[in-house]
């Protein structure tokens, strides 16, 4: 019975298959899935959770949305060619600046992810085994520092926002609008106070939050909410910290090989390693114009990939006195070199020759035509209305001094967007300015002048220190704002500075002619993202900011 055997064999084989247990087949045992309950219980786990809280910084600092929300729509920067073409609304305060704006949505979403991650760490760190109290306090301190920073941005951008200090458990579909004073009082200030008290003076790993970083951020916060004395004390504590020194000359601050320097109090980290660099610092894209319109130039790594988003206003250009202040040449690129052979004004231009030169004064046309390069002059015509071909702003808002602070010649290729430069969130010079503003607000103009003279002294062209000095009589709010513009142009402070000093509407109307016709009181806060408004189940309580 051959077939009999065969059948038995088949039957047996089937029996073997069927012996796979039912329960086994229905059990899920993922190999690569970690959950908060299981993972955030060990020292390694909680540290990884803390790193996740840091990661959301990179969706703001060094990114287009972060720049648009802090740099443009101010008295010193407006839309360049690419800005007006691709995303004019934030600078222009246009009727299209609505909750649907993708940049605003990105910032909102990632900051709240950062806050929930911070809340998770703050809530779970105390029960991690294997850490001593000091280590726990350090971890909680870093997370509270980050939470404060995220909330600080949110309240400045949006006003009253959703506020919670607890990790989200389960599905949460409602949101609250907590008055910003309460967010400062219960969140930002105590968080930073805790960080000041518990963080170490120097970081375990470079880039982690430290006590001076917390002091510096708290100084900025106290200045914003009008606690002048505390602001000054905190800023002074950082200034007096021997670990930090101003970098000389000013231009050395922006050397790509010098982004870790003695002036950095705290920076958001980017690296040359594409594996850990994430989106990278893309600041190099935005402040330059398309130099390839010049026949002697093709796109290259040193000059950058021109996204052409931001353009200095006439006001900013005129704030500098290049004869005594090294910060003009330290902040702006005005000369470009040819990298192909071409003819300009009848002259043959070879690689290495000057191809574009921008000057801050008017030049007669015949002089321009006599040069073997494009000589771009400045007649103080409003940038958007310039038609003369070789004048700052012409060619549809091209041809302008280009902020060089974020250029990144170490990118691997010309179109690479991910740059390696750390983003300097707080540097020492800002603390002098914070201290000066706080002192002035307390009527101590002499003290304020002393603070400011430290950074003006550093900025002075050698031999011009005396001309750069200011006295107590020079100290006004406008002067401090101008000094901040000279020192910190492009470094994601300006919109907050104008808002803090109550000067946003006045100065934008005065100096930013793109934004002037539109800006209104309502623009002191941004629209809440439409996705947030659409998704909450308590839309009556969670409403859109007025006017949007």
């Amino acid at each position, binding site marked *: 019975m051959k077939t009999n055997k065969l059948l038995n064999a*088949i039957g047996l084989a089937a029996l073997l298959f069927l012996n796979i247990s039912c329960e086994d087949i229905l059990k899920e045992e993922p190999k690569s899935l970690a959950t908060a309950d299981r993972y955030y219980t060990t020292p390694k786990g909680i540290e990884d959770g803390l790193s996740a809280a840091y990661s959301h910084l990179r969706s703001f600092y060094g990114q287009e949305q972060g720049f648009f929300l802090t740099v443009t729509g101010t008295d010193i920067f407006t839309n360049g060619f690419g800005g007006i073409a691709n995303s004019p609304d934030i600078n222009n305060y246009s009727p299209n600046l609505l909750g649907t704006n993708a940049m605003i949505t990105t910032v909102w979403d990632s900051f709240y992810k950062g806050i929930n991650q911070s809340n998770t760490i703050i809530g779970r760190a105390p029960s991690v085994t294997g850490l001593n109290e000091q280590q726990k306090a350090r971890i909680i301190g870093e997370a509270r520092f980050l939470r404060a920073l995220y909330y600080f941005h949110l309240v400045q951008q949006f006003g009253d926002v959703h506020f919670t200090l607890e990790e989200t458990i389960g599905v949460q579909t409602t949101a609250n609008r907590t008055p910003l004073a309460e967010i400062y009082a219960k969140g930002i200030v105590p968080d930073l106070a805790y960080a000041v008290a518990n963080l170490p003076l120097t970081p375990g790993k*470079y880039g982690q939050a430290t006590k001076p970083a917390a002091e510096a951020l708290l100084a900025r916060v106290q200045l914003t909410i009008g606690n002048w004395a505390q602001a000054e004390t905190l800023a002074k504590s950082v200034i007096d910290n021997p670990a930090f020194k101003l970098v000389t000359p000013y231009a050395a601050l922006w050397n790509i090989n010098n982004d870790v320097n003695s002036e950095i109090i705290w920076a958001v980290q980017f690296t040359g390693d594409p594996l850990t660099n994430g989106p990278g610092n893309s600041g190099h894209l935005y402040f330059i114009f398309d130099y390839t319109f010049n026949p002697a130039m093709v796109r290259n790594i040193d000059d950058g990939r021109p996204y052409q988003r931001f353009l200095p206003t006439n006001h900013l250009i005129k704030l500098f006195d290049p004869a005594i202040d090294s910060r003009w040449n330290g902040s702006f690129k005005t000369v470009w070199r040819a990298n192909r052979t071409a003819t300009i004004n009848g002259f043959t231009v070879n690689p290495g020759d000057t191809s574009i030169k921008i000057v801050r004064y008017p030049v007669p046309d015949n002089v321009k035509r006599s040069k073997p390069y494009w000589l771009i002059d400045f007649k103080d015509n409003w940038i958007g209305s310039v038609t003369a071909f070789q004048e700052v702003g012409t060619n549809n808002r091209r041809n302008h001094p280009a902020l060089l602070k974020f250029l990144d010649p170490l990118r691997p290729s010309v179109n690479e967007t991910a740059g390696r430069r750390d983003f300097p969130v707080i540097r020492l010079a800002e603390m002098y300015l914070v201290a000066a503003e706080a002192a002035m607000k307390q009527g101590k103009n002499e003290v304020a002048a002393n603070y400011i003279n430290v950074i003006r002294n550093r900025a002075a062209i050698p031999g011009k220190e005396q001309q750069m000095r200011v006295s107590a009589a020079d100290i006004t709010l406008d002067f401090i704002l101008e000094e901040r513009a000279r020192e910190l142009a492009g470094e994601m402070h300006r919109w907050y500075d104008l808002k803090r000093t109550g000067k946003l509407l006045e100065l934008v109307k005065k100096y930013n002619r793109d934004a002037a016709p539109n800006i209104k009181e309502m623009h002191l806060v941004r629209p809440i993202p439409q996705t947030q408004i659409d998704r909450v189940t308590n839309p009556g309580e969670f409403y859109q900011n007025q006017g949007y």
Partner: protein
Amino acid sequence: MKRRIRHLNAWNLAIVLMLTGHSLCQAQTVAMGKQNQDGIYLINRRVPATKSQNKIEATNSVTPSKLKEADILAARLVSGKVTSAAGEPLIGVTVVVKGTTTGTSTDAAGNYTIEVPDNGGTLVFSYIGFLTKEVPIGNATTLNVTLALDAKALEEVVVVGYGTQKKSDLTGAISSVSGKDLQEIPAANVLEQSQGRLAGVDIVKSDGAPGSPVQIRIRGNRSINASNEPLFVVDGIPTTANINNFNPNDIESVEVLKDASAVAIYGSRGANGVVLITTKKGKEGKAVISYDGYYGVKQPIENLNLMDGSEFARYVRVSQGLAPDDNSQDAKFLSGVEVENLQNGSYTDWLDLALQRGAQQDHHLSVRGGSDNVKYYLSGSYFKEKGIIPQSDFSRYAFRANIEAELTKKLLVGISATTTNTLNNQMTDAPYNNAIQFSPLVAPYDENGVFVAFPNPREGLIPNPLLNYQPLQYANESRGTRIFANIFAQYAFTPNLTYRLNFGPDYNSARQGIYTGSLAGSINTATVNNQIDFAYTLENILTYDKKVGEHAFNVVGLFSTQKSRFETSGASGQDIPIEQSGFYDLGSAATVTGINSSLGDWGLLSYMGRVNYRLKDRYLFTLTGRADGSSRLAEGSKWAFFPAISTGWIISEEEFFKLPVLTFLKVRGGYGQVGNTSISPYQTLGGLSRTTYAYGNTQGFGLGQNLISNPDLKWEISKTVNLGLDFGLFNDRISGSIEYYVTNTDDLLLNRLIPSTSGYSSVLQNIGSTRNKGWEFTATSNVLTSSAGFNWNVDLNIFSNKEEIVELFNGQDDDVGNNWFIGQPINVFYSFKYLGIWQTGEAVEAGKTGQKPGDIKIADVNGRGDEGQLTNQPDGSINADDRMVLGSTVPDWSGGLTNRFSYKGFDLSVLVYARQGQLLRSTYHNLGANNWQGRYNGLNLDYWTLNNPTNAFPIPKAGSAPLYADAVSYFDGSFVKIKNISLGYNFQNKLVSKVGFSSLRLYATVNNAFTFSKYDWADPETSNGVVGGGTPLTTATYIFGINFQL
């Protein structure tokens, strides 16, 4: 419950093993005899159509005997005439001596003469559109034969899940199409071939790229987040993987199970319908070798009409606020080379350069035959499609072996297996998109003929559209190997009770390699991704079949286990020193930019029972129940039971029913539940995801909150009521069905977007419900059979499905954030309603919304009341509230009409396919972002200027996109397509046999011949409602083919 059923299963096996010894040697007829019985029964009933056949059988009642070549020692001639039932001679009828290669065909008068063995045998008469007939020769020298029309669609046997049924016995909703009909369409896969042929089945090709997927939706979309893909069952083994892997030439038939009563036997996997694919099996008889091959060319279907150089210059000037012909300031905004080319009239047609003529070919060789005990079907095929975009192609080598062996009269074993190798090259969208956008005033090459990456000096962002076509600039190659089989053993305990064991392994391995070069100044990058999937299905099926007097039972019981495991790994790097190495030498990359691997698996346990009961041959009942347990759902919610009941009544069998015209009438109704578990594994668990940061140069990878766990996740359940009516008119010369159904789907597995203030953006929940209701009409008819040999057949199907969201997580409220609206289909277009263009006279009114003449005018449809509530009344201002549902991607109705004509050796078929009432968004008309600012080229639109006060498109403006630009990109996507025209000629057998063939057919086919649509820029057929960029142009295909048998 689980334990007991498992126990029961072991018990089943014990029975199998115990009974083995007993019943093995008792040779009895296997269960297949049942079908024969039923077949004869039906033939007897259909008297008019089969009268002649019975007559012949009566006169030649000699038992057919098997012939072997050796038996044919002596030979003699038999001649006769073949006619239709109406008495007309049939020309070209194939006449073959059964079991031999001896054959001929009838001449113009229907006469034939054939050499037959002296000791008799059987003649087989076959002819397209007629039933094949076997006639014993006996001692006859003249055999006049009448062939019956093959119009009795209702008598077809159709494949249902876990068995077959006569079409007339069905109680559920099933559509089917035969492999022969499918092969009229030259396409890469069976779905594309099925388009327009299956009522209730919406099939659309997503784009024109070779190897691109085809979307199939059976009776609409039910699920918002879980899959809406149907389950494919190939020779009994379920699979969800790529249908492109199956060679369509091997397919005998496709059946689509649509309602819950038909589908319930697939329980948890059936919510979206089931597509049963049956491949060709061996047939008893001498080996028949067939070859079918074609070659054809493909042309893009487009009418894009881009701006040429001078039109582009005019548009640029207008965008700068100048008159169209004012060339005084060209140098300011055009680059030097553009100005020069404009003056010379030297323009570049980029689209023409970016596209090529495509090609498609298919070669299929098969052998089919068998003896008493062993039957086989073997095939090998090669398919290749070359796209209209260079470096895009799809090729497939497929081999199939379907073998069955009857080991004893009771034991049948077999395998149906296929192995497939695919190679797919894909090109990016860049050449095609960039060709549309690039300035026609620059040339791709410099004066020395050297390629320039950025030929337009004022354009540093978009490279030369031809960049990716340059050597070593781009490759995206996918290779795959798939082995798919059903290995089975079937044992008949008694003629009525059969046990079957199916084991279906499905192995798939795939590799994708992507390389981008450095010609445009970027660093070169390469990525390799590997995937290995293994899934198996193990099924134990007991079938009991019994007829007692007026009661006929068919009972099926099933226990099955399915398991799927999928593993991926990949790596990517950049700065590869030797460009030629492409993605094959990642180790040489200066920087490794990513390494990943993953593992996923899921399992499913199922118990199923089904009872078919037929009383008095006219009252039909089907009762089905299936219990499924899925690993993918939460603990405690893993198991669900899916019941279904359906019934049918063949009214025409009743004594009282005597209508001369209506020869068949059946009503049927059913109700059932099916589930959907098609979500990714591990979604109930929640979890962390990796984040990237750095501390100085130290890595700062972290794990951050990402998914909220949902321990309550359970089945999404669809409940369907189906009512059907089947009819046959004029002796079933016209037959068809009407269906009406309502499907309610509850506990949707909904990926609900939540406010990001929670720290999360979405969560998967069982919330909300959808409803699909619709009707379907199918008819098939033999319209004309003329005495001159002219035949005309028509197949028609029309169907309509209304898909709507009934409930969402906030009850009856719309979810604007997700674009989900109560009462609307799942995929809708939600935007501003376009009214036209603000004209010069309307400057003041336009100014109220901050606009100017030439700008887009939008309907003010909504406003807010005092308490912020929507009023649905105009409020004089335009804002986000004025968005509205403009339409959806779901058609109002669709249909297909096939006309087949034959005359003498010629056959012609024409398939018309219509899809009406859906909206589409055209990205060619995307005027947002940079696209309508005088920077990029585009369609030569009729745009507003001072001297052209059109209402069609807004004026271009440098520096700002038109406000509400999105509103102009929506179009009525309705279309009617002459999907296929196929003309063939069958050579007369006399001629053919001289060259050694038994049949020979030559044919020419045009696929996608003509499209009629209001949207006439490109093919309006789209799977996601979007036409244009990113979806390569579809093609019309012109094919010549040959088909012969040995």
